[in-house]
């Protein structure tokens, strides 16, 4: 139990920047380049934490609260979900609602810290980010409802627990649809193509990057690390749903989970390399379509 929790925390703190490195290498492979090393995000974080802060005169405590909450929330959310076969350290009935609204809290503080700078570019990015997240929240809630219905349990540890294998044979079609919906949620919440370009340097096309434009040094390091952990946490849901097997031993489960997460990072890199970012007016339509697909999965499960 204690060993499981320690393993859980170790995976959470050590692995997320490696995901970013794998995504970067995959995109470089598609571009015919060698690309940055796999461990480059670790070096970037180390470099950023060594620097000093620069605070603007127009900002208040809200500005520094954004990165702090953005770092704390994924850690808390990760304690609620199982990593592959490793059970969730904290589990209670109804914790799926806490999970969704923890991320809403982080988003609120990120947008508030962006608005606190008093610049209009950050406000523009915050408005876009809030619109897209608002449209994606029904999708994730309907996905959780389908899982509740299939597994019969109201806690994330039970929904994604050992019963998931039987759930696939019982309601395979609905779970397949939910897997696609959760992948779309992953891409939207972590600002990946086709919803947002994480490498754009044109401010008019930024959504997430423009909100964090004014943070520097350790604050920016916290934001990068928090974003990587958010990708890790949401990706853990997708990986658990896609690979519902239990090996029964801690090292086996951990190895299967790590392999699944690296495969997911390669898949995100592939999606980023073959698609272009959607036009901004199309993104709400695509998100509503995803919500309708998750509603359709719910209809399938309720029959």
């Amino acid at each position, binding site marked *: 139990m204690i060993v499981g929790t320690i393993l859980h925390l170790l995976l959470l703190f050590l692995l997320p920047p490696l995901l970013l490195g794998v995504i970067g290498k995959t995109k470089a492979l598609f571009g015919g380049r060698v690309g940055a090393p796999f461990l480059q995000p670790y070096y970037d974080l180390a470099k950023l934490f060594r620097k000093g802060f620069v605070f603007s005169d127009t900002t208040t405590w809200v500005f520094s609260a954004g990165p702090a909450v953005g770092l704390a929330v994924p850690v808390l959310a990760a304690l609620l979900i199982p990593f592959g076969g490793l059970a969730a350290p904290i589990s209670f009935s109804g914790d799926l609602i806490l999970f969704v609204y923890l991320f809403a809290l982080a988003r609120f503080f990120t947008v508030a810290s962006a608005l606190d700078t008093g610049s209009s570019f950050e406000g523009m990015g915050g408005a876009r980010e809030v619109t897209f997240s608002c449209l994606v929240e029904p999708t994730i809630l309907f996905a959780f409802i389908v899982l509740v219905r299939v597994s019969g349990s109201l806690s994330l540890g039970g929904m994604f627990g050992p019963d998931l294998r039987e759930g696939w044979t019982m309601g*395979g*079609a609905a779970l*397949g*649809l939910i897997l696609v919906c959760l992948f779309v949620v992953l891409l939207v919440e972590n600002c990946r193509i086709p919803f947002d370009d994480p490498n754009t340097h044109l401010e008019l096309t930024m959504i997430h990057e423009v909100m964090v434009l004014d943070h520097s040094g350790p604050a920016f390091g916290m934001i990068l690390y928090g974003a990587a952990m958010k990708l890790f946490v949401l990706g853990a849901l997708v990986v658990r749903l896609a690979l519902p097997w239990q090996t029964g031993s801690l090292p086996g489960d951990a190895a299967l989970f790590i392999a699944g997460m690296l495969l997911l990072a390669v898949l995100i890199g592939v999606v980023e390399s073959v698609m272009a970012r959607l036009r901004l007016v*199309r993104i*709400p*339509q*695509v998100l*509503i*379509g995803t919500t*309708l*697909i998750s*509603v*359709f999965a719910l*209809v*399938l499960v309720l*029959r």
Partner: protein
Amino acid sequence: MHEVNNLLLLLVILLNFFTLGSARLGACIRAVAIQGAILSFLPVTVHGVNPHALFLSAGALALKGLFIPWLLFRAIREVRIRREVEPLIGYVPTLLLGALTTAGSFIFSDFLPLVEEHHGTLFIPTALATLFTGFLLLITRRKAITQVLGYLMLENGIFVFGILLSAAMPLMVEAGVLLDLLVAIFVMGIVLNHINREFSTLNTERLSALRE
């Protein structure tokens, strides 16, 4: 077999949603073509591998999956249109209506007096949902080619119904249905070409300006 049928019918419904939300004509034509190709596998998975079912599958694949989409691609190349204009009620309301009609067809099919073996399956809901989606495309889109695609999707929905009756219906009726479809596409293609040549537009809203 049951699982394969459900998976294929699920893909058909997803393609319905994709066509309702898509703005690119090439993507819409490909989606309806893939839908026809998926449906052409159904006679074999439902009725087993016998000559009647194989002939039906091959005919449906050749016509719905290959020949008719090729004709439609030729049509859009000749009139040189690539994109759809905004539908009459907008993309999001169209998607919502499509979702409503799909949910409604699921609920409605539970009330129908079906044969015992068809009760829990996805055949009747998929057929009704595809019918309604084809209707929606036909009604809410402005470009004539998308309206033709709506008609094709309608025929796909009727085909799903026909698969269930394929053992009882003679081959002639099936062939008649497919031939009817082919003739309709020929006629529509010729008419579209003439309309475009005459008025240099396929936007049906502008056609009603003839009155003055």
